[in-house]
């Protein structure tokens, strides 16, 4: 079997701060993920602020080094890559970021950002070929080259700017695009347009996406798989339709329920309470990260981190409610190898 396009293998990232008294923040804990080579996929990494989703994006892009574990691209550990392999990796794994306002240098015409990519990765033999490539890419994303080329960033709409960032990422013909909240700052109609671009790039150019988002509804609409993150770990992952339509982890259930339904007749249900943030952060070591907020908490949850249990076909939840189910096999995406657990009766 061919090596996965991209594999995140038991990766952890700890940020420490403070000079004398070191304070450690576990941004990502023993996280694994695979993008298989057989077909392009969109994998959603969904979570709230502090879930570690942006840290994961930075790790995959090689902008942050892991504290533990490996990022493996096409079978090669990125930490052990030669300079040439690294250049290939940088060309084939591209990024789209959230803010279409910040990434442009206001003093350059937008052509600059596109020409730079062509030059850096030597994508074209001469200027004419480069120009043709830029125009083709822009047109394929629904932009009219003559309307955007030669302009300065401030002369374009937010949607045009964001699609130029998509074009920039697509130009080097990548295999993977890490899209970190690409639509959270644009209007509803532009959002649909950009998400549609992503679907088409997957279908027509075979590009896989890591779609990092806090928005479950767009994840549901365009992704194949989803990882629901909570405080640096995976709460639940698997086929997106299964996870959203039949969430099994109590946190996923809470998230899905909390998305306001655009129907006045369908209520939110009972009020939820949030424990103070400091208390939640304090209890992340040892037991289940969600124990402090979980309505079903048992003794076992406070003592051991739950492995990922197989709760359905291609659906895994890191929750002791499903401890009768088989633990997800190590080596696949996800769970830390299940350590033997003491048997504790539910409280």
């Amino acid at each position, binding site marked *: 079997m061919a090596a996965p396009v991209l594999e995140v293998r038991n990766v952890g990232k700890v940020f420490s701060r403070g000079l004398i008294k070191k304070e450690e923040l576990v941004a990502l804990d023993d996280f694994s993920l695979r993008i298989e080579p057989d077909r392009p996929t969109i994998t959603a990494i969904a979570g*709230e*602020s502090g879930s570690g989703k942006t840290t994961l994006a930075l790790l995959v892009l090689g902008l942050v080094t892991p504290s533990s574990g490996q990022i493996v691209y096409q079978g090669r550990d990125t930490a052990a890559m030669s300079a040439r392999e690294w250049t290939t990796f940088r060309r084939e794994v591209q990024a789209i970021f959230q803010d279409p306002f910040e990434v442009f240098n206001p003093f350059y015409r937008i052509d600059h950002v596109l020409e730079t990519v062509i030059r850096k990765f030597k994508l074209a033999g001469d200027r004419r070929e480069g120009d043709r490539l830029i125009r083709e890419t822009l047109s394929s994303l629904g932009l009219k080259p003559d309307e955007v080329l030669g302009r300065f960033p401030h002369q374009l709409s937010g949607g045009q700017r964001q699609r130029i960032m998509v074009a920039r990422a697509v130009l080097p013909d990548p295999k993977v695009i890490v899209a970190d909240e690409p639509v959270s700052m644009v*209007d*509803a*109609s*532009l*959002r*649909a*347009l950009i*998400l*549609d671009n992503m*679907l088409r790039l997957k279908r027509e150019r075979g590009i896989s996406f890591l779609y990092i988002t*806090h928005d*479950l*509804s*767009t994840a*549901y*609409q*365009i992704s194949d798989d989803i990882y629901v993150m909570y405080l640096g770990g995976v709460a639940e992952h698997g086929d997106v*339709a299964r996870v*959203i339509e039949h969430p099994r982890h109590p946190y996923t259930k*809470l*998230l*899905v329920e*909390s*998305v*306001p*339904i*655009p*129907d*006045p*007749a369908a*209520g*939110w249900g009972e*009020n*939820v*309470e*949030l424990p*103070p*943030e*400091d208390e939640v952060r304090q209890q992340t070591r040892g037991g289940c990260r969600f124990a402090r907020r979980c309505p079903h908490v048992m003794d076992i949850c406070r003592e051991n981190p739950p492995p990922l249990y197989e709760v359905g076909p291609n659906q895994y939840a890191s929750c002791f409610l499903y401890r009768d189910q088989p633990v997800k096999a190590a080596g696949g995406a996800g769970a830390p190898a299940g350590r033997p657990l003491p048997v504790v009766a539910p409280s």
Partner: protein
Amino acid sequence: MENGRHGDVLRVEGLQVRYRTPAGEAQAVRGVSFTIGRGARFGLVGESGCGKSTTANAILRLIKPPGYIAGGRVLVDGVDVLGLRDEPLRKLRWSKLALVMQGAMNSLNPVMRVGEQIADAITSHGEARPSAGELERRITRLLGAVGLPARAYRMFPHELSGGMKQRACIAMAMALEPALIVADEPTSALDVVVQRVVAQTLREVGERLGASLLLIGHDMGLQAQLVHRLGVMYAGELVEVGTVEAMFARPKHPYTQLLISSVPSLKERTLPKPIPGLPPSLVNPPAGCVFHPRCPHAMDICRAVAPAPREVGPGQVAACHLYGDDPRIGATGAAPARDAAGQTA
């Protein structure tokens, strides 16, 4: 025009706001009228740039140059806000009229304890000056009402999470028991569970105080969950108003219909269809109905005559020629096959 029906906390009549730009005057709000009853929650939605935030700012008289209020009236509990001098206006803010902004949490003073900031709002805007002990009791009660622990009183803003800060701002907005809370995208910077908690808080404290709410936002899901009546704005105009149930179940204005069908949900796994076209220039708005260039049902009359608001259902008003002056109510969204010529606005 009759002056402030009993029970209307807010009455906006023919509000017009313009911005002077190098290209000419942008008509950001063009003759918007609506009312909010006591204890009622009213939502304003629309795409960015439709004038919903400008409307909120005009009600609070926060329009800054190059913007100005070009016409209309805003009555809060019968008091004409637009005609007030500075000092009575300052008193009216907070005591009658409070604001919770998008990212209000960033408006907290970082070097002042949360309790002190709320105390400041009470002593500088309230009528009577409560004693220190009474003040602290009152603030602790307020913090409790928004689900914050009493110890938040002595905490600095950086010690609170985004959601907690946003709730502290709601506590501050309620401190003087205002008749109306204006909330402009109060939850759009928050995570979904925190958003739900903040929305619950707004609903509960509003009900407890009998305060009315004007909720500005583009999140149709949040509006559906929170408001009683909903107004849809497009290019500076209020194109439709109705009960939230009617607006979602039987939207009449073609723009409202498109807006509602483009709402993403967890029910359907397809991308919602974007509304084709772009909003018009506010400097040179199109003649006739502002929506006609994007309207799937545009008729000849729409290009020539601006439609006046007309009743299209019980408590539901839309500005659209499709509904003519026809007393028949309940025509569906599809264009009725009839000659619109001769209809007057």
